[in-house]
């Protein structure tokens, strides 16, 4: 018995084996051909069904055959087929799937067909479906198909009956087991995020128990990130648990420019217009009539159909002086720029338009507080309308955020360089700021903290430097705006961004905005600066000046020593007199020149010196002539 050597199969054995295989292949090909013939002839009969069974038992990845099989099945159950017969049919189909599942447990087509069966059968047994993939996840705890299928099953359940509740509870425990085995299993956490809202639907559960459940979740996930602060699964779930305040788009304000007969409307986010906003005015009989005209975004390209912008201009068809203009924006008329921002559902924004005096060219544009409509004063609790697992009051949310801040700070004491902790802290601080008021002292402190965190993160996580630079810029910008409001005398204290009231002041300081040497990479809400005439953003890291297009009152712009690679967004700034783009990163003459095509302004000095395109062989004379051809009034400086 012992010590014998392996003998190679002889040529004869090999030949026999090959012959056996060849006959099998021939047989298979025959069946496939027969099946395709049936398919071409649209013969959805029993024979066709048997043929598909034969093929799929050997090759479950043949998706054309699955499709054909579905046609056959549909044909069978159409007509006078009772519910029981249907159930029977699909049940046996599920059994068949279980068989072929063994051949390839990771086949998309098997799962696809199974879902189709369950979607079409009268009484699907969802619990059985979960048990089916259980084994799969024992073998590979992160199997994509397995978890995807579980999510599908859960999505089919609604926790209105105890049957569904029990399945969800069992599934919840299942994810606990999987997480305890290995909490890096994000699929399991993700599944929890699908189950938790379902469990909250359970009527048997009183509020206290629901709260306890949420508290337990926080404890569990804390335990995970304390155990391994580098494990992103736990942090991502934590982020989901905290949730994000949904930032609602709001109208910053609107005014009527009586000189140009135009309404200017500013949003706090870049929005797209689906339906033109409605403009009405009061007539002699105090009735509101619709004013006809057309809207354009100041930053949008009128050549393009899709227009996005922070600032919108309405030009009435009839140029006349109106009294008591009102702009109405319904949520369904606009689209937000990205998913982090939402519209306030069911609340339409009405904006009373203030008057812009004729002689305002040299004065600061005045906006009266009443331009904020009553409709915009939204109950703060309704703002906390993030798609919450469990609705909480503002105070509860503040408490939660504060306690989480403490937890993360404790962790940071031990792990000062943990990037996930730092990021989470920045999220928590910003969430707290959004909920507790934007220009409170606390909010300012929070912003300062966020800036410090970003500085740390920029050093720690080199691969994501840009993201943290942007986040940092947002905090710096918001701080600066807050300072602007608070330092200006007579600034009404109650006016905050949160209440969607406009920045108002009659003081000239407000026409100047200076934010230099702060490493800014972006200006998050340029529309806030709508009334600014002198803007100094020099010595930052801005890469684009396209945002300038929104600031239609700009007269002087200093943006030297940034990282701008081309000039754009300035050609419609009618009042621009000085533009300093010295020492940026403009690589070519064209990148500078093209920004002035269709120039609408008057005399303007543009300093382009210190940009890379000005090398030793620059052609100052030629360029000046070219610029003159494009924009007569623009005077460029090339030499320092």
């Amino acid at each position, binding site marked *: 018995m012992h010590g014998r050597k392996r*003998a190679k199969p002889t040529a004869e054995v090999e030949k026999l084996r090959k012959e056996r295989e060849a006959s099998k292949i021939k047989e298979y090909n025959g069946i496939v051909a027969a099946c395709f013939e049936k398919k071409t002839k649209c013969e959805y009969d029993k024979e066709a069904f048997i043929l598909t069974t034969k093929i799929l038992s050997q090759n479950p990845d043949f998706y054309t055959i699955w499709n054909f099989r579905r046609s056959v099945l549909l044909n069978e159950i159409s007509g006078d087929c009772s519910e029981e017969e249907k159930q029977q049919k699909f049940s046996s189909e599920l059994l068949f799937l279980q068989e072929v599942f063994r051949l390839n447990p990771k086949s998309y087509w098997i799962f696809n067909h199974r879902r189709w069966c369950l979607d079409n059968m009268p009484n699907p047994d969802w619990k059985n479906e979960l048990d089916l993939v259980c084994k799969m996840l024992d073998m590979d705890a992160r199997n994509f198909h397995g978890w995807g299928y579980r999510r599908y099953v859960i999505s089919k359940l609604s926790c209105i009956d105890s049957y569904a509740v029990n399945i969800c509870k069992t599934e919840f425990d299942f994810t606990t087991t999987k997480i305890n085995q290995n909490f890096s299993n994000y699929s399991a956490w993700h599944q929890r995020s699908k189950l938790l809202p379902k469990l909250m639907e359970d009527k048997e559960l009183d509020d206290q128990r629901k709260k306890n459940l949420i508290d337990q979740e926080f404890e569990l996930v804390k335990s995970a990130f304390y*155990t*391994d602060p580098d494990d992103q699964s736990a942090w991502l779930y934590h982020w989901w648990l905290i949730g994000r305040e949904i930032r609602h788009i709001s109208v910053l304000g609107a005014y009527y420019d009586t000189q140009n007969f135009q309404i200017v409307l500013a949003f706090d986010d870049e929005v797209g217009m689906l339906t033109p906003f409605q403009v009405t005015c009061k007539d002699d009989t105090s009735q509101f009539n619709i004013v006809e005209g057309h809207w354009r975004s100041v930053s949008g390209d009128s050549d393009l159909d899709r227009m996005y912008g922070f600032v919108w201009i309405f030009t009435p068809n009839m140029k006349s002086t109106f009294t008591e203009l009102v702009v109405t924006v319904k949520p369904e008329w606009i689209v937000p720029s990205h998913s982090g921002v939402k519209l306030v559902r069911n609340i339409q924004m009405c904006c009373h338009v203030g008057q812009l005096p004729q002689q305002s060219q040299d004065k600061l544009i005045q906006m009266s507080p009443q331009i904020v409509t009553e409709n915009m004063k939204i109950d703060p609790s309704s703002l906390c309308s993030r798609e919450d697992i469990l609705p909480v009051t503002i105070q509860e949310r503040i408490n939660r955020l504060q306690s989480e801040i403490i937890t993360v700070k404790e962790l940071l004491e031990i*792990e000062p360089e943990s990037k996930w902790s730092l990021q989470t802290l920045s999220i928590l601080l910003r969430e707290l700021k959004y909920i507790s008021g934007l220009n409170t002292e606390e909010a300012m402190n929070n912003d300062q903290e966020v800036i410090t965190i970003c500085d740390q993160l920029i050093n720690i996580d080199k691969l994501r430097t840009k993201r943290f630079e942007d986040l940092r810029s947002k905090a710096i910008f918001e701080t600066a705006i807050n300072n602007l409001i608070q330092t200006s005398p007579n600034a009404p204290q109650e006016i905050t961004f949160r209440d969607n009231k406009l920045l108002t002041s009659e003081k000239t300081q407000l026409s100047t905005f200076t934010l230099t040497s702060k490493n800014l990479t972006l200006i998050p809400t340029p529309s806030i600066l709508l009334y600014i005439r002198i803007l100094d953003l020099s010595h930052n890291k801005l890469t684009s000046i396209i945002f300038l297009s929104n600031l239609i009152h700009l007269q002087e712009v200093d943006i030297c020593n940034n990282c701008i690679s081309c000039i754009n967004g300035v050609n419609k700034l009618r009042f621009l007199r000085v533009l300093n783009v010295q020492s940026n990163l403009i690589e070519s003459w064209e990148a500078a020149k093209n920004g002035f095509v269709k120039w609408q302004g008057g005399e303007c000095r543009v300093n382009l010196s210190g940009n890379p395109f000005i090398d030793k062989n620059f052609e100052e004379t030629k360029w000046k002539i070219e610029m003159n051809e494009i924009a007569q009034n623009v005077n460029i400086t090339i030499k320092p």
Partner: protein
Amino acid sequence: MPQLLEVTEYDVIILGTGYIESILAGIGKSVLHLDANNFYGGNWSSLNFRELLEWTRSIKEIIEISGFVEFSVNKSNQERQERIEGKKALMTNFTKVRQQAYSTIEYEIYPIPKQVDDIPLVENDDSETVPKVESQETLQDDEDDNMVDSAITQPDYDALARFLLTSEEYEQNDTITNVITEQFKSKILVRTRENEEAIAIESSRLAQLLQMHKNSENISEETLRYVSTSLSNFERIETLAVLLKESKRYCLDLAPKLVPCRGELIELLINSGVAKYLEFKAMDKTYIYSVDAFDKVPCSKEDVFTNQSISLVEKRKLMRFLTFALDYTNFPDTYKGYEEKLFVTLLTEKFKIDGKLLMAVLYAIALIRTDANNVNTIQGLEKTQRYLRSLGRYGNTAFLVGLYGCGSEIAQGFCRICAVYGGIYMLDHSVKHLLIDESSNKFAGLVDVNDQQISSTFLVSSIDYLPPIFFKGNECWETTSRAIVIIDKFIHEESGDASLTIYPPETVKNKYPITVLQLSAGTQTCPEDRYVLYLSTKANGQNAKEDLINALDKLINFTINKDKGIPNPLFALFYRQKKRTISSEVPENIILAGDPDSSLDFEEATIQAKQFFEKMCPGEEFLPAGPDPDEEEFIV
């Protein structure tokens, strides 16, 4: 008619089937493998219950009757040296030499706990007359339902004990045994084979005890009390009978050990193919004792995550240390300046780990077996790393537990390799003399029990076979106090098939940490509803029992009042085991395979085996995989 060997020349003769000897058997040369025992494993063996009692008796007899045997080399010994064919013939004495490896052996049997509504075994009935010792005929046949007669009351047993201890009449051991046997037989009416056997064993044990004390001038109250209780306690015989009945379902290890999931042994088992002869289960959990409570030890990341007894901050501190320790050689800056300092100092100062958590790291993760004040940072980190590296390979555990006991099974696995290569095995085969060539002072062969001379180039031998002449009598040996305890319930809930419990020093009046390995029926080492506890610690006090009893007391119930929640003991064996070293020179071609050490694993022993292999086969691969028996289907 003894069967003589056809071949009398081998590359290697191996004496003993202990762990190291068995590994070396698989070296792929011509091997003769002998063992004086009739079982595999030698001092590393796994025995069934009956074998364990037998083993206990065989060693204890010598200890208690002859006292400790010293093997000092004296003149008369040297003169008595025989000469065979011009070679020096050194006499072996397996039984006595083996006995040196053990001391302070004692065992105790406890009554099996009864349900409350069970019929009491012994009725106290004072109205009965006190029978004389000889009057065993006074059996009450009308009480057949009761297994035990209740005629004798406690004071009478005292009298009987005194009588047996003092009476001149019972000088002979046999006679005393008979008297006690009769006494037991009169009370235990059900005569099953196991009952008879239990009576015989218990009688002979008591007789031996009496005989020992008879010679002493003053009989202590304690002795009297013990004998009296033993004589009256029929329930013990019942327990013994039960254990004997289920004897074959026990695999009790003399030196219980675990297999780290990453280490010398596991690699050897995989590479050599021996793994396919063996089955393992994962060690489930580790518990640590502190002030009357047992906590689960968070060893792995998953454990830390799920552990509810430590705070979030502690979780972080612990994980920080564990993550560092796993890969500490890559972070020399972290322990710079601590290299020579105590490991404890690194943990408390650098990682701020203290309290219970510190104990857990030191004794349950680094598994320090001595005093932590003797372990420096580098040693501590090495130990921790060894543990951590074992995690995650076979699930969330650092150790595997061998099914059917570890020692004999692994030894037999390697012996099968030897058999595959044509090695010859003879168990229950002893050796009379070792022959030494005087001119070269080399081992030249041996004379076996059949007076056959057999020679080989190398001799691999367990210390048990070494002629007494080599022992100088002043050796200082590493001594471990051990206990094997059979209980009726698990000691911790959710402890799975196998669990480890650690007592840090000074928690149960112990100088050194005590480890308790609990195995259940799932490991095939005991019947269902039984659990085996293996206790061990570095020897410190007077005897093994003293070293371990306090730890055991925290786990199981020794009192008469049976509590359903706490496990009750059925049997407890205490002994000390020594890892012997030989200070005198042995011929260079004799390789002495050592005794089991105090560690929880086979690692040191495996490294030793590797070194011995290198000595015998320099430059050759250590136990390459043998032919695969599964490939037989391809055989034409």
